Structure formats: structure tokens, C-alpha cells
């Protein structure tokens, strides 16, 4: 409710946090983003967690799982570099960190610029996507976080891997 109202007041725009995986630009709705963290403390690996869970970090006393989006989408493997960031997002009642190569900017995008995603966009299955936003020459892939980070699916995958 609140979300849609705000968007209407701002003449139908959404604010999107844009980040990079490799050279491609992806985006998530800012309303789902809790904060963006640098990775200076290192990630603690969790044995037997799903393969795309990089590990856990300590965010001011809270344990936050870190999902490696490249592994999640089956893209080429990442290197954690100087620009790497963790975008902490709220999904359902859980906080999850998404490991990305860099955070670019926060952009206000008119809703009209968002189109449904083609079956596969930049190597990512449309199942994980909320749409694509075309801004000038840029094509920003918007994530459906509920699906990208679905813990139900994470658990299933985990079981499948173990079994």
C-alpha cells in the first residue's frame, strides 16, 4: 500500500539501487534494501549450506547469510575485489546479503521504462527477474528478490545437493 502510494506521488517512478555483476548492470527496488556494506571483515563459510551461499557475516551482532548472486544465476565465478559490496535486503522476515561486484548508483526510473523480462536476459533466467528497465542506452535488469532469494528454494536445493 505504502509503496504504491509513494510511487504515485512521485509521478510514477521507482528508485532502484543499481549494481554490477561483471560488466552487466542489475537493479533492486530501494524499498527492499536495508543497507550496503563493504566486505572488510571477511565471510565465514558455512559447511553444508547451499552452494550459492557464500557464508555468513556479523552485521552488528546479527548473523546475515551472504548469497553470491553469480553462483545463484549460474554466471561466471566471481572474485571478491576492492569494489565488492554486500547489499543487505529484506526478504520476508529474513535479512539476506547479496554479494555483488560493485554498487553503481541509485536511480529514479519512470515506471513506464520498465518492461517484462525476456526469457533469458544476460544469462539470467526470467524466473528471477521483475523486468528490465531501459534508460537511454542502458539496460538494467531488475531482480525479483522473493524468487532470487527464496529460502524455500534454497533449502530444497540444499537438500537436493546433500541427497
Amino acid at each position, binding site marked *: 500500500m505504502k509503496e504504491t502510494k509513494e510511487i504515485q506521488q512521485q509521478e510514477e517512478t521507482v528508485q532502484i539501487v543499481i549494481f554490477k555483476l561483471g560488466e552487466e548492470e542489475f537493479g533492486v527496488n530501494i524499498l527492499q534494501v536495508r543497507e550496503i556494506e563493504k566486505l572488510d571483515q571477511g565471510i565465514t563459510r558455512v*559447511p553444508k549450506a547451499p552452494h550459492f551461499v557464500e557464508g*555468513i557475516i556479523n552485521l552488528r551482532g546479527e548473523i546475515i547469510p551472504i548469497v553470491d548472486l553469480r553462483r545463484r544465476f549460474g554466471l561466471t565465478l566471481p572474485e571478491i575485489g576492492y569494489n565488492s559490496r554486500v547489499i543487505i535486503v529484506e526478504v520476508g522476515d529474513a535479512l539476506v546479503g547479496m554479494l555483488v561486484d560493485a554498487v553503481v548508483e541509485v536511480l529514479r526510473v519512470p515506471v513506464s521504462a520498465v518492461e517484462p523480462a525476456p526469457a533469458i536476459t544476460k544469462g539470467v533466467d526470467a524466473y528471477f527477474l521483475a523486468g528490465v528497465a531501459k534508460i537511454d542506452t542502458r539496460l538494467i535488469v531488475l531482480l525479483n528478490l522473493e524468487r532470487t532469494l527464496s529460502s524455500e528454494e534454497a*533449502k530444497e536445493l540444499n537438500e537436493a545437493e546433500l541427497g
Partner: protein
Amino acid sequence: MEVSQYLNVFMDECYEHLQVLNQSLLTLEKEPDNSELLNSIFRAAHTLKGASATMGFNKMASVTHAMEDVLSLLRQKELEVTPEIINVLFDALDLLEILAKGITEGQEENIEVAGVLQGLKKYLAADLASERKEKEERRTTLQLRYLPEEIEKIKAAVEGGLALIHLSLTLEKDCLLKGARAFMILRELETQGEIVRTIPTAKELEDEKFDDDFIIGILSKKPVGVLVQFVEKMLDVKAVKGEIVEVDKLLVERRGTVQSTTTTSDEPQKTSQVKASSSISPTVRVDIKKLDDLMNLVGELVITRSRLEQISLEKGDQLLGETVEHLSRLTLDLRDQVLKTRMVPVEQVFSRFPRLVRDLAKETGKEVELRISGAETELDRTVIDEIVDPLVHIIRNSVDHGIEEPFLRAECGKKEQGVVELRAYQTGNHVMISVTDDGRGMDPEKIKARALEKGFMTPEEIEGLEEEEILNLIFLPGFSTSKEVTDVSGRGVGMDVVKTKISALGGVVQVSSVKGEGTTITIRLPLTLAIIQTLIVQLGEDVFAIPTGYIEQTISVARKDIRKLRNQEVAILRGEVIPLIRLQDFLGVPQAKNEHLEELDVVVVRNGERKLGCIVDTLLRQQDVVIKSLGSYLGNIDGIAGATILGNGKIALILDMRAVA
């Protein structure tokens, strides 16, 4: 939806009242003449009725209503407290507990209540006639009387153009929350004029101490008809009569001669107030989630404190050092206090046992006295919830298998009434709970025979056992010494379940018994589950915490002493063969360093009877850690019990040794 908001509060209160009912009924059984007790039972039933009706739980409301009716007859001494009635009341109470459970599960509507209601109403029917007559009498005697000064006031008001109107109201028979309704009516009427007096008094109305009708004396400018219409519009009002009363026809109430109706209704009120102030200290209900959050923050604080201590050591500044030390003390005090807020007395669990023992004794035809001590001992809430089942099991065993039949006891020269003693006390960071009976005790020979029969051990193995070890055989899965399977215990789940549950809580169960004299089962539990003692170990670059509850010992094994048995690496420790695993293999951690060491550090963990040696890289230290969950996203991961944050801010995973061993 609005209801769900209050559901938690309602359920909490509901269980509280049920507990009071249970306890009081038990006592009432022993002291049938205790009218104080009857009052408190009545009040609990009454409150429960009101609350459940408000929440719309009709079945619960109808059962409590019927209970209340029976109780009120008992209170007025029109019925006598007989064992039969007590049993019926207990039945009703059991049903209420089922209903309460049903409510939480959303199943209340499907629960059958007719049988119990009939049982209760049987007692009502006999006295219904006399009660009805009494009500009629009371109705006719309802008269408004005024104090002299009130009459003066009325005179003045009437001279000022107002009229004194008496409104006689009758509420609908099935009106729920009559008290609240009456209160609303009075409040609404206050907009129409000044209420001088009501009969019964406003307080009594509010407390629901009236039948369906009452009279209001109001000074108002409005005509009688308007007022009557005004009241008629309100909910649950069945009938209204209004009349203007002349000042000189007013009845004067003389002071000192209080009407009989008020005395009877005042008395229990007074006692209730006294009771309230003596037994209940002011409390606040807090969501357990908030306490968990608080605990989290305090854990953080403790960690930051250690960092600060480190910095202060490096700086070597005396003033800083002193301040940090002070901060340390404060932080630890704070942590202790927060832990305390999560503690609840074991009484919450113990209070259900008198009833359990009573019922068991009746079923088995034994005489058993339950003695409870240390019920005020406190345990973490999370632990409390978990120990109920194990304790129920142990107590059932004591009554069913431990205590002998009265004639047998007499033959042995014991008192016919057996004693089961339930004790709780705190020692250091642990709470001990023991259940002792003065029954027949355990026979080591029988246990041995049983273990042989079941094939748990070879005759040679058994001969080597100490008596205590023999007794501990009862914790083996599938062990049960009682030949007959009774309704009470011996349903195929035995002491092994108790042991598993207690171990899962990081506790220990012990048994000691003297044949012919009795048995004691002792449970040792950690004070809290939020903080546990662990051994911190290193594996490659990662650090893990192993709860010390599982650790039997740590040993150092030379590589050359490791043997292979059927493809399984083992070490031999004082003649005992201990299988070894490399924790890195189990966890899939790369780069363990122990591949090249000559001396290996091994943590021997124990899960039930199984022992397992875990090879690690380095034993770092023992440390109390605050357990944090991995969160709902990761859920339960096999072998990982949670995580904790160490003094340097790094995370260490806490291993669940039950999955490893």
C-alpha cells in the same frame, strides 16, 4: 483480526487461571470446608468465563459458565463439596485445557463439550428451582435508598428545575459481559443528567455483581420518555421503566445497616485484595522476542568490551585501563540481569504435578504424597518448556513402578502412603531437579538379566560393570524393566527418550537407587540455553565451537598409534576403542593442517553411549559463547547448531555434535 492481537494475552491469562483452578481444586479436595479457596476458584472460573466470552470462544464460555454456576452453589453452601463434584470439576478443567489448546490451533469449534456440560448441569438442576425463587425475591427487594445529604442535594436540584427519575432496567438474559454493558449504560446516561445513585452500586454493577436488573436514580432536565427511549436503544437492554420520584417519597438509607446483599458481595472482594497484594509483585508482560533482542545487544556489548580491553592493554594507559575495567563489570552485571529477566520459576512446570500424581495414584490404587521443594528455582524460559515431558515421564515411573501397592508397603514395614519428592535447586551455573521415591527401588540383578535378554551386552561385559553403570543401563533405547505394560507408563518409550531430551538441552541425567528403599533420578540442566560453554578449536583457517556438554575429554594421539579397523581409523584409549573422524572431512573444510602433524589433538565427544574422537588442528581455549541462530533463511543445517561472535568480531560456527557423533 482484531481478536488475534489480544489472543496471546488471552491465552497467557487463560493458562494462568487454569493453573490457579487446578491448584485450588487439589487443595479443595483436601479441605472441602475452605470457603476462601472456593472463592478463589469461583473468581478464576468467573474471569475466564468473561474473557472467553469477550473473545468469542463460546464453548469455553459455556463450560466456564456452568462451572461457575456449580461453584456458586457450593459457595452458598447449597451444595456440598463431595469427591464426586470435585471429579466433575476436574473433568471440566481438563476439558478447558483441551479447549485452550484447541483455540491456539483454531480447533475450538470441533471439541465436544456436551458430556461435561451435562455432568455440571446435573448439579444445577436440583437447585434450579430454589435459585429461581430466590432471584424473584431479590428482584422485588431492589429499592433505591438515598443518604440524607443526597436527599438534600436532590431537593436543591428539583427546586432548580430538574427531576429525579428512577430508571429500572432489565438486561437480556444472554447478555455477555453484563458488567461492561452496565458500565456503558451508566456512562452514556451521564450525558443526559447526573446519576445520583444506583442499586446495586456502580462498583457492584461494574464487577458484575447483579442479576439482570438494576435501578438508576438520575437527575435530569429531560422528560422520562426521552430517557427511556435513550436507554432502550442501547444493546442488550431488554426492558426499561422510568418514573419521576417526588423528593418526599424517597427512602432514606440509614448508615451502619448495610443491606445484606452488599455484605455477601463485599467479602470476597476484600479477601481478594489482601491476597493480591501479598502474593503478586507488579509485573509487566514482555514478548520473548524483545528479550531475545535485548540478549543479542548485550552479547554485542560483551564482545565490544573484550575488544576495548585489548586496545586498552595495547595502549597501556592507566586511566583508560581503569575505565575499561569498570565498563567490564557493568557489562557483565548487565548481562546477568538480562539473563535473569528470561528466567522463570520452575513452579510453572511443577504446579501441574500434584494433579498428575493424584490422578496416577487413583488409577493405580496407590496412596502417594507429592512433596515439592525449591519450586522458586529459576530456569531459562526456553529450558522450562523442554523439561515438562521428561519430568512427566520420570514422575509417572516413580508412581507406577517405584511406589508399591499399599498392602505391599505395609508388609515391608513402610507407611502405606508412599512419598514422591520433587526437588529443585541451583548449584553454580546449573539447576538440579531430582525426583525421589521411597518405593521398591531398582534391582541391579533384574537390570542385568534384562540387558542380557535384550542382547545389549555380553555376560562378560556385564560382570565388569560397577553398580552405578548397571543402573544407567535403563537409559538404553528399548530398555524397560516393568513386565506389564500399563496405561500409566511403559508405552514403549522409556528413559532413553528422557535422556535424549535432556542431553539435547545440554543436561545430564543420573540415577541412583537402593533396592527396597527407593530411587532418585537427578537431572542437571544449564541455567540458560542462550549462553553455553564451548571449546574453541581451529580447523584450517576456520574456527569452530564445540559445546562442552558433549565433550568427554581431549587427548593427544600420536600418528603412529592410530590404527585402522575395517577402513575406520580408531584410537585406543585405556583399552577402549574410539573411532576417529577428521572434522574437516565431515564439514568439508579445506586446508586442514593436521595432515602432517605427528601428534594429533583429538576431542572425544559423546552422544549417548557412542563415543567419537574428532581430530582438529588446534585446541584454542574454553569460552562461554552467546548462541545466535543462523536465521530463517539458512534454516537448520545438519551439524551446525548456530553461530557465535567471538571477541575479535569473527564468527565461529557452533557444531551440533549429535549430528557428528
